[in-house]
């Protein structure tokens, strides 16, 4: 049994009587079943209004003017011509003359006009004079001794060195060592709905329709940036087209949209175009590890010594967990952040973990081959011991069986012909868990039920599980509940990030609904002449627990309220959620050794996540994690020109993303740990697919690919190296 999650600051640290009464029951009928997404019909018909779909009366269109240079000083910004252009209603500086722009796409000014075409025309009339300065676009250029020092305190920020155990002793115990460099690249979030908002002022009150992962969090940011009380800012996000971590902050684009709306005296919609989205809405930092690792003759990891670095862009960090999960008893690591003239990173689905996973798992297969141990067995042997949040030994064994790992051939497929097949596997871990959030349940005399929570549905199905938990608690069908989310008029909930939404919001939803039912039973008890404590709600009735015939229908019970309504609030409490998940993935690939093209045939996932809320949407999230990691492994790449610092593929045709034909068969095995409550599943499934694919490519060909993405060119190069030097 895992230690219950430590409560967030200011939250109760003891299991309350309320939680004791309303904690997740052993058996649930709605929660955990495959319930179809409630807003599915709205999404498939186009009725769902995303922020991008909000059209307000008299609305203007905003456009950001951005630096074309990766590094320059602004000499002057001249908005006068733009201001005179047809339809233009507002033009504002974001930066002032004298300021530096630090990356291509760094915002400089913003304008608004009555149509999108006209604002784009006017944007070309903004005259910004730049004094171009030396830049460093690529990590290796930034680190080079001769590199211009672009950042005030240097291009490289050294971190601390962490050391555990006795490194010398560890390497003395090693029968074999591997010394190699592993790296992952920068990718961008590529949200289908780009970053943007619609801002509308009424006096000193601001309404913002924002494509966001956190309505309350961004309301706070905007209020602070605008210098107005947070109570004057309402943020609404009913539907949002993907964030993956990049939409937890309001950003310059939302702030300038609000300022343009104020200046224009009209609502303004400002959305990034696809190029801006690639340049200035965050990215996953790169990661590189130069490693020496040792393994004993009997297949135990003995030592790991590594220098690591990465870039999170212009002034942002790049850390990641390493070595990932496996038990290297003696280890030393030092990390440095390298600054480059590129857009700053933002959290991206399981920040740090996909990098750590790839940088570790490929090495694991190399070490396993040196001691001639099956890589699955090798992993099981070197995983941390079993614990509720560390189930790898068990999941690897089970997953191997389900996957048919016994059919794996030793490294290099000897089958004749150009198509080679290989298997690989990799593990993952994630935190998740709950944090401060609140919910309100309202029951009206007509029997209607609303559950209000200022959370947001970023595509994970939050709206649906809010209704499911409420329905479960009140003994009603899901269709009887109206979930009301995505608006700061509802009780404050945290951002949807870090796989925390379900674990943060479902406990207060359950507790608020439980309190509401208690309040209703207080009316029903006297009417039935029974102690309210003996009452339960099932199948649309409130009745005596041991005597189902003594009770009344839900609607009749609510009628007892007369003209009053029940409104109960609850906050997040300890005891209904946990932090810490573990899982593993298996991949089968084919590699065409003539073209270097890798195809992923199937992926098998074993993943735990506490109590599954909605089986259907939970599995969808796992599918999505796998697909995201497949893109990371094989296709997507933010490609920069080293000389100009320009992104050369800021679009969706040469920034490659998998389509239907690239899809593997995905098999999902969710491992419920019901006693741990809710945990969250958004991120862990996207951690280890890329590593499993890389290991499978190595198994198929013998070529070890130590950097992502595994393009056909890299596969062919690695195969040539392998032919020249044998297995490394």
């Amino acid at each position, binding site marked *: 049994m895992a230690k219950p999650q430590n409560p967030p600051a200011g939250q109760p640290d003891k299991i309350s009587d309320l939680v004791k009464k309303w904690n997740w029951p052993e058996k649930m009928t709605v929660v955990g079943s495959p319930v179809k997404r409630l807003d599915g019909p709205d999404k498939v018909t186009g009725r769902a209004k995303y922020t991008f779909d909000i059209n307000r009366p008299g609305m203007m269109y905003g456009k950001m003017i951005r630096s074309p240079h990766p590094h320059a000083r602004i000499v002057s910004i001249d908005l006068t011509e733009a201001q005179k252009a047809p339809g233009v209603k507002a033009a504002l500086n974001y930066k002032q003359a004298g300021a530096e722009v630090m990356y291509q796409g760094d915002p400089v000014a913003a304008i608004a006009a009555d149509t999108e075409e006209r604002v784009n025309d006017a944007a070309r009339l903004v005259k910004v004079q730049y004094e171009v300065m030396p830049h460093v676009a690529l990590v290796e250029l930034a680190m080079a001794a001769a590199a211009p020092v672009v950042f005030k305190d240097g291009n490289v920020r050294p971190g601390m060195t962490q050391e555990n155990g006795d490194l010398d002793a560890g390497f003395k115990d090693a029968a074999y060592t591997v010394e190699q460099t592993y790296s992952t690249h920068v990718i961008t979030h590529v949200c*289908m709905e780009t970053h943007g908002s619609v801002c509308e002022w009424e006096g000193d009150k601001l309404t913002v329709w924002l494509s966001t992962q956190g309505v309350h969090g961004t309301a706070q940011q905007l209020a602070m940036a605008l210098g107005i009380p947070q109570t004057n800012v309402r943020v609404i996000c009913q539907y949002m087209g993907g964030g993956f971590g990049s939409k937890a902050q309001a950003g310059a684009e939302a702030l300038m949209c609000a300022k343009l709306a104020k200046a224009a005296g009209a609502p303004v919609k400002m959305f990034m175009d696809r190029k801006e989205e690639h340049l200035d809405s965050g990215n996953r930092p790169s990661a590189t590890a130069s490693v020496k690792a040792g393994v004993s003759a009997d297949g135990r990891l003995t030592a790991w010594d590594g220098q690591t670095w990465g870039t999170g862009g212009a002034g942002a960090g790049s850390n990641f967990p390493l070595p990932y999960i496996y038990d290297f008893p003696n280890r030393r690591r030092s990390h440095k952040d390298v600054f480059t003239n590129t857009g700053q990173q933002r959290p991206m689905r399981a920040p740090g973990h996909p990098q750590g996973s790839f940088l570790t798992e490929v090495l694991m297969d190399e070490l396993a081959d040196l001691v001639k141990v099956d890589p699955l067995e090798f992993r099981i042997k070197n995983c941390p011991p079993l614990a509720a949040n560390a189930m790898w030994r068990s999941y690897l064994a089970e997953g191997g069986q389900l996957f048919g790992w016994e059919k794996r051939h030793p490294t290099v497929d000897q089958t004749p012909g150009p198509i080679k097949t290989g298997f690989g596997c990799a593990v993952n871990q994630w935190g998740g868990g709950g944090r401060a959030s609140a919910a309100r349940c309202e029951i009206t005399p007509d029997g209607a039920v609303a559950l209000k929570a200022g959370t947001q549905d970023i595509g994970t199905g939050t709206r649906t599980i809010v209704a499911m938990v409420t329905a479960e608690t009140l003994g009603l069908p899901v269709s009887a509940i109206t979930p009301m989310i995505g608006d700061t008029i509802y009780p404050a909930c945290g951002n949807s990030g870090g796989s925390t939404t379900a674990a943060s919001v479902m406990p207060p939803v359950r507790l608020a609904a439980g309190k509401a039912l208690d309040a209703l039973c207080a009316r029903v008890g006297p009417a039935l002449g029974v102690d309210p404590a003996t009452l339960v709600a099932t199948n649309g009735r409130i009745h005596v627990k041991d005597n189902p015939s003594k009770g009344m229908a839900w609607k009749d019970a609510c009628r007892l309220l007369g003209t009053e309504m029940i409104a109960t609030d609850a906050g997040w409490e300890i005891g209904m959620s946990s932090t810490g998940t573990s899982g593993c993935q298996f991949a089968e690939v084919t590699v065409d050794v003539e073209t270097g093209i890798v195809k992923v045939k199937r992926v098998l996932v074993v993943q735990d996540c506490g109590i599954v809320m909605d089986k259907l949407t939970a599995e969808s999230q796992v599918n999505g994690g796998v697909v995201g990691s497949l893109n990371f492994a094989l296709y997507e790449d933010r490609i920069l020109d080293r000389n100009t610092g320009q992104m050369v593929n800021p*679009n969706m045709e040469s920034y490659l993303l998998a389509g239907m034909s690239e899809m593997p068969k995905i098999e999902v095995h969710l491992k419920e740990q019901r006693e741990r409550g809710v945990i969250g599943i958004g991120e862990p499934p996207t951690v280890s697919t890329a590593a499993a694919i890389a290991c499978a490519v190595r198994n198929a060909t013998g070529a070890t690919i130590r950097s992502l993405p595994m393009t056909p060119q890299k596969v062919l190069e690695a195969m040539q190296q392998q032919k020249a030097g044998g297995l490394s």
Partner: protein
Amino acid sequence: MNPKDDQSKKPDVFNVSRRDFLKSASVGGLVTAVTAVAEVEAQAPGAQVIGPGEVPIQLNVNGKQINLRIEPRVTLLDALRMRADLTGNKRGCDRGACGACTMIVDGRTAYSCSTLAIEVQGKRIRTVDGLAEGNKLHPVQQAFCDADAMMCGFCTPGFVMATVGVLEKYPKATDAQLYKGLDGNICRCGTFPRILEAAMKVRGVSRG
């Protein structure tokens, strides 16, 4: 027009998927062919000059006539989204790569972000907004809901229209035809397996 399906009866030059196009474009053959067609059209005698100011246009959208005044450079997608409040179809990439804008024009799927509104006057335009009959979902829409073939849902209208497009052309589409019909669309949440599941389930089901 920018047909994206592979069942066109039009010249072979359009008969390519996005990936085929990229492959061919890299060796230059297709680019030349497209240029050749475009040049022939541009040099046609008596070509009428429209714009650059706003011009009246009439579009037949979801069975209704819509009258708009737009600049000739306005795309079909932007005309409907920003001037007719038909916001069902989305703009993802704005250059014919992601498919979120997929509409059906005279029976063929088209990237409406790369189609000028003025050039589809007189054609039958169908958007996701007009697919359901009242509250009764189109079988493809129902199949998407049943299979949870969506997450954030922003790409969903495009995928729904692409699925409708391929299944109207091939009611009993083979797996290969389904893959091909859906290859022009991108889902960043990674919903593909269930989109395929939905498309396969609804294959052969006539409109209810």
